[in-house]
């Protein structure tokens, strides 16, 4: 089988722009995405979703249709509804990309170079009762809105911190969907810490967008700021939300609770591929180490967009272009006939990253929410509590891999996506070490559970197995 010049993982703004620029440069490109169509998280459903072709979700969302059309016009081959479970660099420097294409099928795609543009996931917000049906993330509710045109019914509460929480509130408000209460859990001191980033923020596009958003959501919604604790209450499903602010404790009836704690890079795939990752103390997340084109210390493995560090959709698109130019230079010795375009994308990247530091500081979660009380479940898969993890640390489990072995936290099918960062935060609080010294639980391929039939189908086709 002839290898592709380039395999791109992820069809968000980063992956789509990378595909368009790489194809324009004459490369053979294959793009793989778990979703059903181009768009990624921000532009989910912009081709065939409930609001495709409308401006009802705002001008940012409408931009997705334009990018998706450019991608379709590029003629790049794509595999949708397919999950990349492993990226492996061979001895000859090329890559084997293992892809689960169905519950009983998997294929290996060979590539000279890989761009991982797998985006972000929401940072876990572990609270009492967050495993109850009826409790979801704000991102999940927003995905239901974009893909299927479905919204919460009955009393709905939003809780947490981060621009996306307010964006969802604003999108609901614009559509006439009533929100009962928004519980803002950002620490009150965030404003002071964010102040020194105000100049950058005012120079950014977020300033205008941000204020417009807030006003819209504020007018329509009851917002309670400075909330110190949130709990989901119910027997077999959510019936109410309790919160505490200072001496005030209240319980409000709710059918749906939407949690949000900001977004962090999805690192399972790039970590398991061997790329070096580093703790970013301002963003409270692990990020891959990359050069100016997005290349990691695994030669030929590039990372673009939010999976490399949260920068938002505009930055993701610019990074996608820059990674494509980097790949062109690597394979063709030149990034196209003039490097003006590359400089333009680099400028756009710089502009779109202005204001990010302000948002990071303003919406930073509270320490007490990153490292929750003892009885809160941290690992949803194996039902391991914060107390279990603390006990393990006190018994001598100094790192996340030991905590995993002691408690089973991180051993379930989500492979620590829902508990990894919280485990690190708890160890940090208990031992006084910095997350940078603690590190993350080891992340291995396949990055999603594989069925026996998938493995069998790999060997049936004579390709090498996805699992070593």
């Amino acid at each position, binding site marked *: 089988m002839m290898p592709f010049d380039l395999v791109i993982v992820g069809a968000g703004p980063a992956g789509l722009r990378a595909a368009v620029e790489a194809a324009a440069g004459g490369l053979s490109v294959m793009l793989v995405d*778990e*979703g*059903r169509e181009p768009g990624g*998280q921000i532009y989910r459903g912009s081709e*065939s979703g*409930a*609001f495709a072709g409308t401006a009802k979700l705002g001008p940012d969302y409408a931009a997705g249709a334009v990018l998706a059309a450019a991608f379709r016009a590029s003629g790049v081959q794509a595999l949708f*509804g397919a*999950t990349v479970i492993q990226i492996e660099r061979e001895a000859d420097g090329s890559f084997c990309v293992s892809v689960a294409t169905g*519950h*009983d099928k998997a294929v290996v795609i060979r590539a000279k170079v890989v761009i991982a543009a797998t985006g972000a*996931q*929401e940072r876990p917000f572990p609270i009492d009762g967050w*495993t*109850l*049906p*009826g*409790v*979801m*993330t704000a*991102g*999940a*509710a927003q*995905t*239901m*809105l974009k*893909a*299927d*045109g*479905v*919204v*919460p*019914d*009955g009393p709905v509460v939003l809780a947490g911190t981060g621009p996306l929480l307010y964006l969802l509130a604003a999108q609901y408000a614009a*559509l006439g*969907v009533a929100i009962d209460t928004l519980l803002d859990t950002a620490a009150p001191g965030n404003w002071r810490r964010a102040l020194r980033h105000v100049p950058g923020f005012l120079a950014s596009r977020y300033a205008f967008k941000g204020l417009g958003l807030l006003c819209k959501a504020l007018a329509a919604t009851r917002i309670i700021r400075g909330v110190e604790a949130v709990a989901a209450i119910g027997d*077999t*499903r959510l019936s109410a939300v309790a919160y505490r602010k200072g001496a005030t404790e209240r319980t409000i009836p709710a*059918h*749906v609770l939407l949690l949000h704690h900001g977004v962090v890079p*999805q690192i399972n795939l790039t970590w398991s591929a061997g790329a070096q990752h580093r703790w970013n103390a301002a963003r409270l997340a692990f990020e891959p180490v990359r050069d100016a084109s997005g290349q990691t210390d695994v030669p030929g493995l590039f990372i673009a967009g939010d999976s490399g560090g949260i920068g938002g959709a505009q930055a993701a698109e610019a990074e996608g272009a820059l990674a494509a130019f980097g790949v062109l230079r690597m394979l063709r010795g030149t990034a196209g006939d003039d490097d003006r375009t590359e400089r333009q994308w680099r400028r756009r990247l710089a502009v779109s990253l202005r204001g990010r530091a302000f948002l990071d500081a303003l919406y930073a979660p509270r320490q007490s929410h990153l490292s929750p009380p003892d009885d809160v479940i941290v690992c*949803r*898969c*194996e*039902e391991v509590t914060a107390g279990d993890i603390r006990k393990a640390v006190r018994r001598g489990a100094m790192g996340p891999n030991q905590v995993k072995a002691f408690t089973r936290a991180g*051993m*379930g*099918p*989500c*492979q620590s*996506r*829902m508990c990894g960062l919280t485990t690190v935060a708890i160890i940090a609080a208990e031992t006084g070490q910095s997350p940078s010294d603690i590190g993350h639980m080891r992340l*291995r391929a*396949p990055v999603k*559970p*594989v*069925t*026996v039939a998938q*493995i069998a189908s790999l060997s049936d086709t004579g390709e090498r197995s996805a*699992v070593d």
Partner: protein
Amino acid sequence: MFRRLVEPAGHVTVTIDGRPFSVAAGETLSTAMLLAGFAGLRRSARLGRERGPFCGMGVCFDCLVTIDGAANRQACLVRVRDGMAVQTGTRLAALADTVPE
């Protein structure tokens, strides 16, 4: 719990736990199940508690269901098809069919 804001172009029929439901063509399975009143889709591994869709984007694995006999599929990553048969209530320990690492 949830309602439809936009009317679908067409409908298909899926069977959930043996009962037929008319759902929007092409809709995400987890959305269709929430609209059909299924809040809990599976049970947790250790305590056997009900779990429903949580992250909506394939990272949490709480929405695992059996689809046309295939166990442990992520309902948030699958679109409904006419005639699809879905089974809820798997207790996650039954992940034995899969290779976790």
